[in-house]
C-alpha cells in the first residue's frame, strides 16, 4: 500500500508538487519564525535576569517597596552572614551581590576642574574574584569596544564606561574620571577611577550612560561595607524554573521576612515582574501559537489544493470504484498520500527553516537604529534560538494540515454513486 502511494506521488507530479511546496513553505515559516520568536523572548528574559532581576532576588522589604528609586540607604546589611545561610538553605542557587546607583560622572581638565560631566547609571558587580561569573553573565567581554584598547578591569580603581558616554564627552582609555553621588548614609561621595574600557551592550537603556565597576570599589566609595543593594540568585542549572523558583520564594519569605522589620530580607522571583512573566510565557508558548496559526492557514490552502486534486482525479476515482475498490479504501489511500506528502514537505520545510534559524541565531537582525528612544530593557539585535523543539515543531502543522485538507476534500469520494459511474465516465 505504502509502496503504491509513494509510486503514485513520484510518478504523478501534479499530485505532489503543489501540496509539497505549500507544506514546505508553511513548515519553513513555522520553524524559522518560532525559533526567532523564542530567541527574542528568551533574550529579553535573559537580559533582564542577568542585568537586573536574577532568577530570584533578595532585598530588604523597604528597598523592595522603593526599588524604582534605587534606595541604597535601605540596603541589606550583614550580607556575608546572609550569604552563608542562603547557600546552606538553597544549594541549587548561586548568589551574586549587586549595587545599583545613580550619580554624576565628571571628566576633569588638566587643572582638575570640570571639563565635561553627565549623569550615569552605575552597576557594581564582582569583576575581580577569580571564580566570579558576573563577567560572563553581563556579557562584558563581548560588550567591550573594538574601537580602542578596551579591556576588563584588572584591579580596583578601574572602571568601564559606555561607548556612548565616552564618545559624547571625549573620554579615552586611561583617562581619569570622578564619580559624584551619595553614600549609603547620605554623605557626599567622590571617587576617582581610571577608565580601562568602553562598552556597548546593544541595549539603548544600558548604552546611554552606564558605568560598571567592581563591587569592592563601590562598597568603599558608598560606605557599604558588608552591605549590598540586591543579592541576585541564579539557578546553577542555568535555566529559570518557575515552579522551583516559586517554591523557594515561599520558603524563603516564610523563614526570613518579618512583617515588623522593614529591613528584613525578602525574595522576589523573575516572573514577579509582569513584563518578564509575559516574555517567559511567550517564549514557552510561541511554538504552540505558531503551530495553531499555521495549521489553520495551511489547512484552508491544502483543502483547496485537495479539492483541485480531487476534481482532477475524478475519473481515476471513478475507475477505481468501477473496478470494485471500496470508497473507504480509496479515502484511506488519499489520507496515506497526505501523510507521505506531509512528511516530504515537513522534511524539506524543516531543513530550510533550520538553515534560516541558524543564520538568525548566529547573526540576528540589528534593530538598534530604531531604538534610540526605547526605555525598556530589550536587546537591539534580535537573534533566533534553536532548541530540540525546532527540529520537530514543523511536522505538526505539516502533517496535520495536509491530512486535514485532504480529509475534507476527499469526502467527495463518498458522494459518488456506482450506478452513475459509467455515465460520468462517458464509457
Amino acid at each position, binding site marked *: 500500500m505504502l509502496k503504491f502511494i509513494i509510486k503514485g506521488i513520484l510518478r504523478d507530479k501534479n499530485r505532489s508538487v503543489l501540496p509539497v511546496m505549500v507544506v514546505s513553505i508553511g513548515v519553513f515559516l513555522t520553524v524559522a519564525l518560532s525559533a526567532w520568536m523564542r530567541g527574542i523572548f528568551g533574550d529579553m528574559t535573559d537580559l533582564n535576569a542577568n542585568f537586573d532581576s536574577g532568577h530570584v532576588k533578595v532585598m530588604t522589604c523597604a528597598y523592595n517597596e522603593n526599588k524604582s528609586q534605587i534606595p541604597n540607604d535601605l540596603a541589606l546589611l550583614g550580607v556575608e552572614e546572609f550569604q552563608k545561610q542562603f547557600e546552606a538553605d538553597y544549594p541549587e542557587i548561586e548568589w551574586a551581590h549587586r549595587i545599583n546607583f545613580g550619580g554624576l560622572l565628571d571628566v*576633569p581638565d588638566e587643572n*582638575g*576642574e570640570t571639563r565635561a*560631566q553627565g549623569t550615569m547609571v552605575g552597576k557594581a558587580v564582582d569583576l575581580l574574584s577569580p571564580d566570579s561569573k558576573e563577567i560572563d553573565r553581563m556579557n562584558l567581554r563581548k560588550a567591550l569596544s573594538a574601537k580602542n584598547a578596551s579591556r576588563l578591569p584588572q584591579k580596583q580603581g578601574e572602571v568601564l564606561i559606555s561607548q556612548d558616554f565616552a564618545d559624547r564627552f571625549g573620554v579615552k582609555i586611561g583617562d581619569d574620571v*570622578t564619580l559624584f553621588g*551619595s553614600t549609603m*548614609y*547620605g*554623605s557626599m561621595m567622590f571617587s576617582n577611577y581610571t577608565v580601562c574600557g568602553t562598552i556597548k551592550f546593544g541595549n539603548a537603556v544600558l548604552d546611554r550612560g552606564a558605568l560598571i565597576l567592581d563591587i569592592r570599589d563601590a562598597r568603599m566609595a558608598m*560606605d557599604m561595607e558588608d552591605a549590598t543593594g540586591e543579592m541576585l540568585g541564579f539557578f546553577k542549572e542555568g535555566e529559570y524554573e518557575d515552579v522551583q523558583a516559586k517554591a523557594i520564594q515561599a520558603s524563603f519569605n516564610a523563614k526570613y521576612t518579618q512583617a515588623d522589620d522593614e529591613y528584613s530580607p525578602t525574595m522576589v522571583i523573575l516572573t514577579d515582574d509582569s513584563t518578564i512573566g509575559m516574555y517567559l510565557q511567550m517564549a514557552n508558548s510561541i511554538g504552540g501559537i505558531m503551530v495553531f496559526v499555521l495549521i489553520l492557514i495551511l489547512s484552508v490552502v491544502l483543502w483547496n489544493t485537495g479539492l483541485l486534486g480531487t476534481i482532477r482525479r475524478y475519473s481515476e476515482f471513478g475507475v477505481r470504484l468501477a473496478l470494485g475498490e471500496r470508497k473507504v479504501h480509496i479515502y484511506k489511500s488519499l489520507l496515506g498520500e497526505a501523510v507521505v506528502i506531509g512528511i516530504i514537505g515537513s522534511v524539506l520545510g524543516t531543513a530550510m527553516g533550520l538553515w534560516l534559524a541558524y543564520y538568525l541565531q548566529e547573526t540576528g537582525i540589528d534593530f538598534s537604529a530604531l531604538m534610540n528612544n526605547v526605555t525598556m530593557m530589550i536587546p537591539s539585535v534580535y537573534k533566533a534560538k534553536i532548541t530540540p523543539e525546532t527540529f520537530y515543531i514543523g511536522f505538526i502543522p505539516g502533517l496535520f494540515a495536509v491530512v486535514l485538507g485532504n480529509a475534507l476534500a476527499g469526502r467527495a469520494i463518498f458522494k459518488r454513486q456506482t450506478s452513475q459511474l459509467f455515465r460520468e465516465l462517458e464509457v
Partner: protein
Amino acid sequence: MKNITLIISLIFSLTAFSQTAEEIIKKVDKNLTADNMVMASSMTIHGKRNSRTLTSIAYTVGDEKAFQEYLSPARDKGTKMLKLEDKLWIYSPSTDRTIQIAGHMLRQSMMGSDMSYEDMMEDRELHEMYTSEILAKEGMNGREVYVIELKAIVDDVAYHSQKLWVDCERFVPLQQDQFAKSGQLLKRVSFSDVRRVDDRWYPFSIVYKDMLKQGDGTEMNITSIKFDQEIKEYMFTKAALKQ
C-alpha cells in the same frame, strides 16, 4: 445696624493688617539677609535608619557669593562649596577634585539632607521674587503671627508659591510651607529659638522637612552668627577651595 457691623469689621481689619504684606516681607528680609554674614552651624540629618550630624562654617556676601566648609564628621571634613551667582562648585579633599554642579543636579539632596543645593544657594530677598498677600492673623507657638501667601513673580525660583507664618512683633517666620506649581506641598521649614543679634531677630534653630521623603527631617542649629564682618575677597575664588 448692618452698616455699623460692616464699619466695625472694616476698622478691625484695617487695624489688624495695619501693615501691608509687602512691608512685612521686607521686614522679614531685613532680619534674615545681610550684606555679609559668617555663620557656624551644625546640621543633623534624621534618616530612616540613622541620624548624623555635620558641622560647618559659612561665609556669605550679599546674595551672590557664598563659601562653606564642612568641619566634621571625618568623612566630610574639608569638603568645601563655593557659590558665585548661579554657579556652584564642590571641592572634595579625598579626590582633590573640584566639581561644578549644574542643571537638574542642583535639585538633588545636599549631603542626604532635606535641603537641595538649590535651597542652599537661594539668598535673594523674598520681596524680589514674590508678591505677597496677608491671609489671616492667628496664633502659633504662643506667638501672634501673620499668615502670608507668596506668589512667584520671577521664573527662576525653586518654589512657585509659599505660605509664611510671620511673627507679628519680631518679623521672623515661624513656619514656611513651599509649594510646587501644581499646589503640592514640597517642603516645610520650621523656625524656633529666635534670638536678638545686633539690631535684628534671627532664628537659631531651623528644621527642614522634605514632604516627599520619609524621615524626620533635617535640623539646623546655629552655633554662632556674625553680621557685617570683613570677609576677604580671595575666599570667593576657586583657588580658595583647595586651600
